[in-house]
């Protein structure tokens, strides 16, 4: 699998780390709301198909970015910084 780093371009997946689901908004830092954090941290969809996720170019520029990847085919549908 090849991953397009927004900074360095397309590189082998071995240079990256996966950072989980990026489709949800992180609750504000001082919300204090257990339910909001619970849903954010523990309740996920497990879609077969397009999935917005976090990736980091750990063995490159160390940039984090969001990537829309098809979980069934590993096709990269698009990325956003």
């Amino acid at each position, binding site marked *: *699998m*090849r991953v397009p780093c927004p900074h360095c371009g397309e590189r082998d997946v071995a240079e990256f780390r996966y950072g989980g689901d990026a489709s949800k908004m992180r609750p504000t830092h001082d919300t*204090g*709301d*257990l339910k909001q954090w619970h849903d954010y941290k*523990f309740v996920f969809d497990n879609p077969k198909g397009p999935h917005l996720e*976090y990736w980091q170019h750990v063995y490159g520029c160390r940039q984090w970015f969001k990537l829309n990847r098809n979980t069934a085919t590993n096709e990269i549908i698009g990325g956003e910084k």
Partner: protein
Amino acid sequence: MTAFKRIDKQSHIDRTKLISFQFDGKMTNGFAGDTLASALLANGKTLLGRSFKYHRPRGIIGAGIEEPNALFTTGIGGRTEPNTISTTAELKSGITAKSQNAWPSLNFDLMAVNQLLSPLFGAGFYYKTFMGPFKKSWMMYEPIIRKAAGLGAALPDLDTARYDMRYMFCDVLVIGSGPAGLAAAVTAARTGARVVLAEQDFEFGGSILSSGSEELERWRKTQIAELEKSSEVRLLKRTTAQGIYDDNLVVLNHTPESHSALMITEQLRARTIIMATGAIERPLVFANNDRPGVMLASALRTYLNRFSVAPKKRAVIVTNNDSAYATAFDLAEHDVAVTVAEHRSALSGDLLAKAAQLGIAIFPSCGISDVVGEKQMRAVRLSGRHAVTIECDVLGMSGGWSPAVHLTSHGGIKPKFDEKIAAFIPGGFAKSHFGAGAVKGTFGLLAAIREGEVAARAALPECKKIKELDLPAIREDRKYSIQPIWNAAEKANEKYAFVDFQNDVTVKDIRGAHQEGYLSVEHLKRYTTLGMGTDQGKTSNINALAMMADLRGLAMSQAGTTTFRPPYSPITVGAIAGRTVAAHFRPKRLSPLHDWHVNNGATFIEAGLWMRAWYYNWAGNTPEAAYIKEMELVRQNVGIADVSTLGKIDVQGPDAAEFLNRVYVNGFAKLPVGRARYGVMLNDDGVVLDDGTTSRINDTQFYMTTTTAQAGEVMSWLEYLLQMHWTDLDVHVTSLTDQWGGMAVSGPNSRRALQLAFPEIDITNEALPYLGVMDFKFEGVGVRVLRLSFSGELAYEVHCSADYTTALWEHILNAAAPLGIKPYGLEALASLRIEKGHVAGADLDHRNTLDDLGLGKMAGKDKAYIGKELRFREDCQAPERWSLVGIECMEDGAKLRGGAILFAATDEIKGHGRGYITSVTWSTELNKYIALALYNGGMKHEGKEIICAFPLKNENVKARIVSPHFIDKQGERLHA
């Protein structure tokens, strides 16, 4: 009696180069260009092995990668390789080949009694024994079965061969160099594209090599010559494409000609892939079709035309399709008497005419009823109306052709059944994949060439302008015709009619699977072990699937195939590992002080990727002796330890204080400049991520340290927060872990040691109090001194650029030599911190909460921090959580051990217990073993007696739960 002979015929062997090799201890000769199989046949060897389950005599069946039987253990110079496929193994001088699966010898095989026991070993024996109600019986039978069956054995010794791995790119990868592959490669090469041509054989040409045609040979050589002149083309013989993965990553196994490495695994990124992988001939299924001398018809043609090896006098061909006539005609033209048993009732006129002209008798509407002869076939009995017996040396069988669709379906595209050719063809091709020739079910030679050219043009749309390919001057392709015959065995003989020759699966076994309800293709496979051998059923799968479909009354298209998975052919494990073995299995990280440790008597221990100084020989020659001396040094005087492996992160920016205040559970917003603070971080889920000390260098700059183990994780986490979430914070983080080195100077005399080292600097208790930080220059080099203690003693950490760490270390050692300063290693470092009750990697199991570690009071009540909300969820607050406790041993002479399972004194010693010991040491202060542990309910149980069970050594040791802070509970030493 020999069935084959070498004939005087021009072919691809080089008779000027004689090659000697050993087969079962006897010196044997062949020629350059031979395979091991062709050389053995030329020497009249047909009995070459015994079968897997029944130990039936077996010979060579095929002439390529599909061979199920003629597998040998081969070796050169002491190193051996089991299950070498003799039909693809290039003959090399000095090679030794041993037949497998026969004991004590091929001709006299004691295990052949298995044949008498065959009802026991029938299909489902393994399955039922393993899955059935008596699981223990499998444990009993398994070793016996493995010894009796088993293919070649791998050596127990270390594989000393060298393997390599390489990473390459290309525009077009052409897999297979038959007519279609050559045409595709030449067309692609003419565009100037970067082309790789991968061929599993040691010659390019595929089926052309077996054709015996001079014109095709001329065409083949012309194409190869053109490819060799193209600078952008890489020609890879002896290279098997094992699998195709995401984004066109293709794994190739390449055996190089020179001995730089035994095998090179290539990970090739191909922009486009053209699959020209050809087709594999299917056997026909009839009684005793496994006797030595019964072979694939196409294999007979290959041995004749490529290796000049022909049946001695007479061959019978049995077929249901036109392709076998090429073999019949070529054999007849080389003075072999040929008879054809033809399953079909009618045949096209051109074949009949040619057969008549060559004196070939054809028996229509009949097959083989039985094969006569055991260790070498002597005759066949025809079935049907012509039930005659024909004496012959060999029987060539052709049940049609199965396209080698394996690679086309690695990406998940299932093959589909094509009725016209009675075979599975690719169900389609991924966007950048193309196919050409027999793999698509195109069996004509000129058609294959044309498809190869078309595929290359499709793969490279820019290649419109290039010259068209020259075609060989041969007759137009004949139309291919086949009448599928999946099972030609007479009912009474089904238990001798073999479908899978490697795993000894017969028609009867397939019928049995059906009767017992193992109907789906995947169940059939697991029940009978069909297709589960090293050949992965290349000759057997389709026949078996068709038989099952027939029993179920399904069309082939409904029955489907099993899933094709990489690798296409067996791979030596070493080739997968490449160079990543032994010390190269993973990278090794070295402290900047590593060489000093090496030169000064350190013994090392791996800690994660790091090589760390474990203990020094000044203190003793065993870790047990040395660490106690080193601990005493620190408790009583002063020692110095390498702490360069700590994670070190520079945090800078106007919002740095706010950032750290969010990340740590305790407050950092108001940390004064020149002060350090111990901090703990949680994950979002409220579980402890890491701890460490962070100090404020100036208003906008902090120096963070992390544990050695979590350094990378913490760095990534901080970057994630800053880049993806808190983009409004103006902060930058930079890892200094490799750029900076550090040392701990610990012990009651540590201040005196530093005063001796830095006489110009004021490091009195007033100038540098506990948790104070100071930067200064020493001989022009920036030095950072932090008054921190891991050991519980008065102690400092001294950090500086990695380039100067050794110089600084040596300077302190020299300057403080009058005090008796000495180095101490990781074992003592860890023991000192256990006595002090500092948690570290072993105690942090990524499940602990702050409260589990007794650190709950640290967290700010009125500030927000990561993990605050989920830290208070119900589970994390449960009273019976496994929490940190101290343990002291109550038995003289007994030992506490890391990993020991903890029980209450009244518990039965059984099961998982109430907790376990995470860190353990001998305490030089308390003169007993002490430990840190996680225990159900934690310090609630302080003072209670427990049992530390260590079943591996049958030990149950009495101990007591105590405070994890074993020494200096008031912290007086720290502030001294």
